[in-house]
């Protein structure tokens, strides 16, 4: 499979000594969805700005659709679509007018442009509103129009910067479905930035976790989680066990570690929780301890994040300053 995006050692510093990117490298194969995950201020938007030729790196190399972003930005622009976090829709024009102008900038014209615009309007459920001014569209509709505008010219790479931020949960679910469909139908490579762990987990075939301008971890979500080799096993006993009773019962089990007992609750980490459960239950029963319920939790991306950066994702969100020095809580709210 060819490379849709190749990034090596990207460095970007802003005035006032803010280092937004400190040597970022990753690769996105053609036709896949790649997630760039990280808290606000990690460098996701900066990376996208460089890859979409809005911004130039201080050093490093970035190739998109085979063209170097610094040396051949024009070639890159012809091949990419971008949906920024802030909507780029011209709100004083209709949906159709927005799409037609966008297509014209890529040299599309006449009948084929009209047909493509109709196709996109239908596909994104905007046909009825096509001739209404975009100002009258709901938030979800504007977002869909933004995506349609990014696709008019049939790019080979699509950038989605925080596509579901600010949307209702129901709309978000629809958006996820649509994004997953896009990669499949149009053969697109999609680079998706998000600070929602669940979104990255659900949509991305591969992801990179950015933290303070560096790639903290990269790989497929399942691979990253499997690497942790630590499912959480949680057992509720019928009654509080005698001191040392649990350790005696489970001590000889391989692959079960970090056993912690609190009252009637028993927590442990197991390499493979599903496989460990029968052994744990048998051992506890043999030790005379009656089990009420058992839960197994697969590691989450939050656990992955914790492993690679030493902090929980939620805490990281609160700490990091954004590149222009704004308070992250305010930036997230704004």
């Amino acid at each position: 499979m060819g490379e849709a995006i190749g990034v090596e050692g990207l460095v970007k510093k802003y005035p006032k000594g803010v280092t937004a990117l400190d040597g970022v490298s990753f690769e996105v194969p053609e036709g896949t969805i790649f997630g760039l995950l990280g808290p606000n201020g990690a460098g996701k938007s900066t990376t996208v700005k460089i890859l979409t030729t809005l911004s130039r790196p201080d050093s490093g190399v970035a190739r998109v659709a085979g063209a170097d972003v610094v040396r051949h930005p024009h070639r890159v622009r012809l091949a990419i679509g971008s949906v920024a976090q802030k909507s780029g829709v011209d709100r004083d024009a209709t949906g159709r007018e927005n799409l037609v102008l966008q297509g014209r900038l890529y040299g599309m014209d006449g009948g084929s442009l009209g047909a493509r615009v109709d196709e996109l309007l239908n596909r994104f459920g905007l046909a009825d509103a096509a001739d209404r001014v975009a100002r009258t569209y709901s938030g979800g509709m504007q977002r869909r129009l933004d995506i349609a505008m990014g696709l008019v010219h049939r790019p080979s790479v699509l950038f989605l910067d925080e596509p579901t931020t600010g949307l209702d949960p129901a709309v978000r679910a629809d958006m996820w479905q649509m994004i997953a469909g896009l990669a499949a139908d149009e053969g697109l490579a999609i680079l998706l930035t998000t600070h929602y762990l669940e979104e990255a987990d659900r949509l991305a075939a591969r992801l990179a976790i950015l933290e303070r301008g560096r790639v903290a971890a990269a790989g497929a979500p399942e691979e990253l989680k499997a690497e942790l080799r630590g499912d959480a096993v949680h057992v509720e006993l019928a009654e509080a066990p005698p001191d040392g009773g649990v350790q005696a019962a489970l001590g000889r089990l391989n692959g079960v570690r970090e056993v912690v007992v609190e009252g009637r609750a028993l927590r442990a980490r197991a390499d493979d929780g599903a496989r460990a459960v029968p052994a744990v239950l048998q051992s506890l029963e043999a030790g005379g301890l009656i089990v009420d319920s058992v839960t197994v939790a697969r590691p989450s991306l939050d656990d992955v994040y914790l492993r690679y950066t030493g902090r929980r994702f939620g805490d990281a969100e609160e700490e990091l300053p954004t590149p222009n020095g704004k308070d992250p809580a305010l930036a997230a709210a704004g």
Partner: protein
Amino acid sequence: MPTSLAHTWYMTVRHLRNLMRQPWYIAFTLFQPIIYLLLFGALFARVVEIPGFGSASYISFLAPGVVVMTALFSAGWTGMGMVNDLDRGVMDRFLVTPVRRGALMMGTLVQLAVVIVIQSAIILGLALLRGASFPGGITGVGLVVLSAILLAVPFGALSNGMALLVRKEETVIAAVNFVLLPLVFLSGIFMAQNLMPHWMQSVAHVNPVNWAVTAGRAAVGREVDWSVVWSRLGWLAGFALVSAFLATQAFRAYQRSI
């Protein structure tokens, strides 16, 4: 058609179409000029009796000045559209496309020129109804409008440039109110130049607004002094080149800041 021209055309159409959806905007921008033309013009009609004024009809004298003033203010407000596009993410969206960068600014300036033609037609039409006469004929009137456009385009470019640098509506509004109005009074829009205080005459001599008024008035007069017309238009063209350079620098500064 070369791509730059095509893109400029698309951008111009976009701006004009959005403007046509708010036709009241043109009426709104004409309100003050009409007040100046009709009320101020009537109020000060007898100023032509001052010896040395050089004109028999104040409204004929004033009309080209009001055309220039209107064009100047329309140009000043151009930056607001740019601030809007910058704020809304529209500019960045365009910058990701292969759009010719020059077209982004030229589109607003061509739209400005079209609006000025419309505004000028209305003002001059009203002046004619009030009894003004323009011996210079259609050519003269055309040159008045041309002078106004040659003034407006550089000021529009500067307004856009300021918008790109500061990106705040308040700054554009402050610049329009505090810079343009003094420029209007430090020109021959309301008063014959030879009757202005000496220091104002000196300032007017280097004021592009005055170059436009002088050229326009000279073109519609009974005896056209072509050297005056061409010299002023030439200076305005030079001013336009300088403004274009400054605006381009501002655009580049914006691109570096993204």
